[in-house]
């Protein structure tokens, strides 16, 4: 660092210390944040400048500020603007000082504050990204239940958009359930899938063929009219795979295939008779 720059920098530090109350007050007005938070940051800034510019403490406090303001519903731009407000607050002190050192120092200080402002932005983005990652993981775990509908019949109600990773999880879970329960019939219900494109259809077909290889029959149910239309328009062939409009139809089909007859006599009670195959 040249002597000039060093002098300028020291002048700024002096200004910051001398006019602490005034600058802090002005900053609070500009940033519209609580004065305790800002004065903590202000003091941390002074200490780190004294200790030769180690900004670790400062960054910690700024990260905290960024988080708390994000929780209060401020955008990251608001937070960064609040930090930039310190420049404006200091400028008044620099103006009244009027010396060339103070002006040169202000440029240096301005760059420092820019960095810190961008740092709050970065903190915000990192926190956001972590939340998104966590949620994606939770979604993957939560959204793939395999339910038993009847002895020997299991169903997978799929909800949400299907991508390769999710279909892989669903497929593995379904096949493992087939092994564990010895179920011979599986129903894949896609009522909750918003759209079916060629890729999703491909994934579904793979799941069905894999289940068939293991010795289980797969029925796809819950195909809504628009989706049926899309599938036909895309020219996707489901071949000899059984498809049903609703889960109830699919269950009835699976029951029939496993030789179970559901009869509804005069009363509303259901009687179930199992035939030995």
């Amino acid at each position, binding site marked *: 660092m040249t002597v000039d720059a060093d002098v300028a920098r020291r002048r700024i530090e002096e200004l910051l210390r001398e006019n602490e109350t005034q600058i802090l007050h002005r900053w609070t007005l500009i940033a519209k944040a609580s004065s305790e938070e800002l004065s903590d940051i202000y003091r941390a800034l002074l200490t780190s400048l004294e200790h030769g510019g180690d900004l670790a403490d400062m960054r910690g406090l700024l990260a905290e500020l960024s988080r708390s303001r994000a929780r209060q519903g401020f955008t990251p731009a608001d937070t960064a603007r609040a930090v930039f407000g310190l420049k404006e607050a200091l400028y008044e002190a620099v103006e009244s000082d009027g010396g060339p050192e103070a002006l040169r120092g202000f440029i240096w200080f301005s760059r420092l504050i820019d960095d810190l402002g961008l740092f709050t932005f970065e903190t915000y983005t990192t926190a956001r990204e972590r939340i998104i990652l966590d949620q994606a993981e939770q979604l993957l775990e939560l959204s793939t239940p395999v339910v038993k509908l009847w002895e020997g019949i299991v169903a997978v109600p799929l909800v949400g958009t299907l991508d390769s990773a999710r279909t892989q999880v669903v*497929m*593995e879970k379904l*096949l*493992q359930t*087939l*092994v564990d329960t*010895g*179920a*011979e019939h599986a129903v894949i219900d896609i009522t909750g899938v918003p759209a079916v494109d060629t890729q999703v259809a491909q994934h579904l077909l*793979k799941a069905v*063929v*894999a*289940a*068939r*290889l*293991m*010795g*289980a029959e797969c029925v796809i149910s819950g195909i809504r009219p628009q989706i049926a239309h899309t599938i036909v328009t895309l020219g996707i062939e489901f071949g000899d795979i059984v498809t049903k409009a609703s889960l109830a139809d699919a269950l009835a089909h699976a029951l029939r295939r496993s030789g179970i007859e559901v009869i509804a006599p005069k009363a509303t009670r259901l009687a179930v008779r199992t035939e030995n*195959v």
Partner: protein
Amino acid sequence: MDRVPILKLGDILIISIQIDLDDQSVLALQEDLADSVVTHGARGVIIDITAVEIVDSFIGRMLATIAATSRLLDAQTVVVGMRPAVAITLVELGLSLGGVRTALNLEKGIALLDHVRGATS
């Protein structure tokens, strides 16, 4: 070279694959099986692959070939006990084993053969 034993149960032949198959054993198995089907006049063949953890396209084709051979000799083939990972691998390889019947386990495989024969006879 390891040979896979072929067990006879009534008019059904049961093959349980419990070793890592190399190409030689596969070819030997195909020949042995064709011989046995003719000798015993078997009507059904069950291939149990519960213990098989890794498959490649060669094994996949072996299953299809055995099924085709047996069908020529008037015996139905059922592959039983396929693991999920194996099933996924076969699908990814593009082998859907068109002409092969499958069942979840040996018991269900035998039931399936009985059912099929009941329907045809």
